[in-house]
């Protein structure tokens, strides 16, 4: 059963069928081949229950939040503030790129929104300060990926839904790794600039007075963060309700910055619904596939198959990480997660790993997937906002940061406490 299922999945995806259609075809074929009961009769109810899941409502809301923030005019002052505080480091504004991405990530659940927003304000200064252009672009593509690690996070919500793990716990678990990864990115920039001083760019002077003055630029993102994340832990709101509060707050900020127009709102809605349609069609098909998989007992079969291989937990984790790193080169992170997580997570939990910890691992692998060519969405976002030259500049520039992400993956294996410390501190884990 396991080889047939895997073979069919690879066949359908290899034929480049749309992911949602491939999953549904797989579900119907497996139901036909292995199920004792006509599983397809339950399809309407199952697809409806996934399509009207209250936790999943937060996914389009966070996409919408990102689309509004992107156009709300808060990024400029945020970037200015970060450059006042961080640009004295070797590598100058590249550190502001990372810092601004970290702050923006705390308001946005999407990495595309993060890379696009910060990329738009940052790319015009590359030539002016004579930075090594490739590394600068790489820092934007990589910094943008922090959007899904630092809460809120669309990917953590989807993981929580797929594995029935608490989203508030997952959010807490993402904080420390998010900050550590940001610092590792900055260290990577310093290191690169020490090796190749010509990438450093012109130093930027600042004074304490202007630094303090610039802090005002952090207020809008801080307000959104406080409302979206704070409302969950203050017991005000569920993760879905907090996303709704975030959307309304972002609309308010856009209005204050005089960016809220009918045309802007329509643009934001169009972008949101395109992504929502794509994700929810996959969700619908995947949920039905999961139903079929459990009806035919595939997850158990796979579990005993893997146990039968006699792998140690560590080597199994290693194999899974390599699998995701390779898959991430060819697949966008969200579809990749929806297809694989329901099958992989039970296996890894059975082997003794913590599901919250593994959620953060999956997000780190998704981040890597976003910047590994040929299919790396953030590479294209950064190339797009730059609007000239070749995509290969971004691809070359991001290589040191891929190494940083792999280092981070090893780091949370060596020190899982980094992930679980905060959830435990809040007494949630």
């Amino acid at each position, binding site marked *: 059963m396991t080889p047939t299922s895997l073979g069919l999945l690879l066949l359908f995806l290899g034929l480049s069928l749309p*992911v949602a259609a*491939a999953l549904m075809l797989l579900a119907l074929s497996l139901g036909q081949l292995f199920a004792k009961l006509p599983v397809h009769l339950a399809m309407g109810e199952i697809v409806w229950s996934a399509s009207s899941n209250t936790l999943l*409502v937060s996914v389009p809301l966070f996409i919408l939040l990102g689309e509004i923030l992107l156009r709300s005019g808060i990024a400029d002052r945020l970037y200015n503030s970060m450059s006042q505080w961080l640009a004295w480091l070797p590598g100058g504004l590249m550190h502001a790129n990372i810092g601004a991405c970290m702050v923006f990530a705390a308001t946005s659940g999407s990495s595309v929104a993060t890379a696009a927003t910060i990329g738009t304000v940052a790319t015009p200064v590359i030539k002016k300060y004579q930075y090594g252009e490739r590394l600068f672009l790489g820092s934007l593509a990589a910094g943008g990926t922090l959007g899904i690690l630092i809460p809120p996070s669309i990917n953590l919500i989807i993981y929580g839904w797929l594995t029935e793990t608490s989203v508030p716990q997952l959010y807490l678990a993402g904080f420390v790794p998010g900050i550590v990864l940001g610092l590792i990115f900055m260290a990577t920039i310093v290191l690169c600039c020490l090796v190749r001083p010509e990438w450093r760019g012109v130093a930027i002077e600042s004074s304490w007075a202007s630094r303090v003055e610039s802090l005002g630029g952090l207020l809008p993102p801080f307000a959104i963060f406080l409302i979206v994340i704070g409302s969950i832990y203050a017991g005000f709101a569920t993760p879905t309700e907090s996303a709704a509060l975030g959307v*309304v707050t972002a609309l308010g900020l856009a209005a204050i910055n005089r960016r809220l127009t009918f045309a802007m709102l329509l643009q934001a809605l169009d972008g*949101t619904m395109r992504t929502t349609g794509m994700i*929810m069609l*996959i969700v619908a*098909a995947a949920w039905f596939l999961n139903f079929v998989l459990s009806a035919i007992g595939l997850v158990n079969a796979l579990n005993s198959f893997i146990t039968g291989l006699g792998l140690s937990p560590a080597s199994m984790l290693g194999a899974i990480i390599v699998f995701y790193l390779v898959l991430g080169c060819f697949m966008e992170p969200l579809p990749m997660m929806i297809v694989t997580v329901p099958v992989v997570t039970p296996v890894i939990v059975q082997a003794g790993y913590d599901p919250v910890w593994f959620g953060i691992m999956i997000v780190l692998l998704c981040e890597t997937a976003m910047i590994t060519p040929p299919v790396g969405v953030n590479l294209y976002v950064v190339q797009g906002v730059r609007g000239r030259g070749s995509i290969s500049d971004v691809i070359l520039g991001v290589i040191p940061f891929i190494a940083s992400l792999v280092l981070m993956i090893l780091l949370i294996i060596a020190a899982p406490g980094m992930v679980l410390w905060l959830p435990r501190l809040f007494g949630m884990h």
Partner: protein
Amino acid sequence: MSSAPDRVHDAVAAISLWMARAGGCLLLLVSVLISIEILARKLFLLPFGIGTELSAYALAIGASWSFAYALLHRAHVRIDVLRNLRPPALQALLDFLALLSLAALALVLTWYAYDTAETSWALGARENTTLGTPLIIPHGLWLAGLAWFALVCLEQLAVALLAFARGGVLALIQHAGPAAMEEELGDVLALADPPLAGARPR
């Protein structure tokens, strides 16, 4: 050239766009409703909780109403690395198959959604909540989105075949091939967030 198919397609695109926007508006509205609810709950201790239930319907309806729009923008992702290595004739075949499989998915979903909606109509089923929503309303609107998606899939198949008849393999690829990443992100990139004057470091 005959412009009848073009006119049909323009109408299909416009309807799909505005259905997606209507779905987006639903999500926007439930955001506002939920926010008001939370304020009422916290500030005036007025507990009322219809936002969560309505937001679930908004998700199901908004998503199904945007499937066709996503299709027209070729947003339903495919893993096209292997496809891109093939000669054009095979690429065209794969693109056609992709469209065909999506049409099959849409028809299957519509069929079983009809089943579900029909059952809740026949039973007069209501959601077990304070609102007691007659389920036929959300089910019916959800079904409408799926049915439109199936129709647009069939229309796209027809257009692809027409393109093939007129311009051969390359015309079919141009019509049904996957969107280039740049194209897919077109809107994110046309965001036009012009910098505020003087906000940049000097």
